[in-house]
């Protein structure tokens, strides 16, 4: 990257290329709709200057057909772009089922990334090129926003909630990673590198990066350490829902609603168990608020995801 001047942001994905195309096309449309304004305004101002002997007879007071035309036609053209942009945007809404999930925890003023194998990074995100990657993100304090200009993507990161972003980066390289929601003192230096690697390089990097075990395995350790199996384990005498096969599936609640057991549901169940109680169970689960960090929660989520379809067994480290 030229340190002195940048003419155009790098395009690291097909989505980025498409967004740029949309942007350029829309710029052309907007110029086409307004160049006449500049030309005509300047032109009329000069041509019809007082003192010039030009035809000023029958000056129109209005022309409703013309007005209707220049109201409706630009709007319809703009709607075409609305559709195009919406299609691009919604394409980024639902990730493919086999996307690699990377957990993100933002805090003032750094980014923490955790790969499924347990590899941790701070202010740097390594991803394989050509594979869909899904980021599950939360904040420990204020609202941040993860901005990857080379992908033309950003998503706000909220406290108390998981937001997600998915992408498929195509072009290996080192790109910018920035915070783009004002978060206080060091907002402008809450940045780092977004490294896209070939799949082979990525595997090598994973092996070299230190890990305490896969996220799911760490989650399992946490599950045992916090005593969750005391109620949720097979040998428990307490009436608590079994957690195998739960993640990703619908759960009936005691007030009649049915919700999907996604990351947010798991997190809320651990921190605020009285809010959504499974049907047929008493609200006796204690809260673990204050005992688990955001990172712990993400590990527990990874563990529950891992037993979401398989029968209960210790996950691979």
């Amino acid at each position, binding site marked *: 990257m030229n340190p002195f001047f940048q003419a155009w942001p790098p395009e690291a994905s097909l989505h980025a290329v498409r967004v740029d195309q949309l942007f350029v096309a829309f710029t052309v449309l907007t110029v086409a709709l307004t160049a006449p304004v500049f030309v005509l305004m300047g032109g009329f101002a000069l041509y019809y200057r007082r003192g010039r002997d030009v035809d000023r007879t029958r000056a129109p007071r209005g022309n409703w057909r013309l007005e209707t035309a220049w109201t409706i036609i630009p709007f319809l053209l703009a709607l075409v772009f609305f559709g195009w942009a919406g299609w691009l945007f919604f394409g980024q809404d639902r990730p493919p089922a086999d996307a690699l999930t990377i957990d993100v925890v933002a805090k003032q003023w750094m980014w923490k990334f955790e790969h499924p194998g347990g590899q941790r990074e701070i202010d740097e995100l390594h991803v394989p090129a050509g594979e869909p990657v899904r980021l599950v993100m939360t904040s420990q304090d204020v609202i941040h926003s993860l901005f990857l200009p080379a992908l033309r993507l950003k998503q706000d990161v909220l406290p108390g909630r998981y937001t997600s972003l998915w992408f498929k980066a195509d072009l290996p390289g080192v790109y910018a990673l920035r915070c783009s929601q004002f978060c206080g003192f060091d907002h402008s230096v809450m940045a780092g590198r977004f490294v896209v690697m070939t799949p082979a390089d990525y595997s090598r990097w994973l092996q070299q990066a230190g890990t305490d075990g896969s996220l799911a395995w760490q989650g399992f350790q946490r599950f045992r350490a916090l005593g969750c199996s005391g109620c949720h384990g097979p040998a428990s005498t307490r009436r608590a829902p079994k957690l195998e096969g739960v993640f990703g599936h619908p759960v009936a609640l005691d*007030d009649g609603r049915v919700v999907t057991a996604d990351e947010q549901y798991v997190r809320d169940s651990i921190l*605020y168990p*009285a*809010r959504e109680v499974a049907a047929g169970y008493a609200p006796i689960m204690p809260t673990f608020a204050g005992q688990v960090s955001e990172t712990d929660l993400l590990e527990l989520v990874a563990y529950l995801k891992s037993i979401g379809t398989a029968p209960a067994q210790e996950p691979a480290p």
Partner: protein
Amino acid sequence: MSDYVTLREPYAARRQQSDADFLGMYVFLATEAMLFGALMCLTFMYRAEHPQASALAARQMQLWIGAANTGILLTSSLFVALGVQAAREGGRRMTAGMLGAAMALGVLFLALKGAEYGLDYKDGLMPVVGHPSPVREGPAGLFIDLYFIATALHALHMAIGLAVLGTTAALVLRGAKQLPQQAVVVEMSGLYWHFVDVVWVFLFPLFYLARG
């Protein structure tokens, strides 16, 4: 042309001036509607997101005091309406009397509200002060906080309404405002009072009747 009514700058006719006064009051009430409306929308959304916690919180409220206050306020509005009618007919003492009765009920409302807040304090429902009851945890506490903000804001508007009614009644009784020529003053005060009443009519079911 009556010489009781002073035409203010820049008006040219009495009718024009009273029309303007009315329109001004209606616009002002529209702004108050947006103020309370914003809070009500917010509360409605929280009720929808946390139905059980909201119901639990609502069950802590003093339903009978709230219901009694609703009746008291509606009755006071009746008196105000009667007062406006009397003003239109030129009855000075009747007008002041009706407004006075409405004010008495308004004072009763505020007294009951104060007693209610006292009970809430004893139950540990108030934010910041007192020993917090376990109910205040989580979204239920949030609902209770919204209840306090809404009812406190409403009580403030009630107090202002009392001042408005009182001033009007005094002016009418003293003869500073002649009836029926200047009945518009009573009508506008009445409008404000009715509005404060209507706000309560929305607040009561929104909070007290959320008991599930």
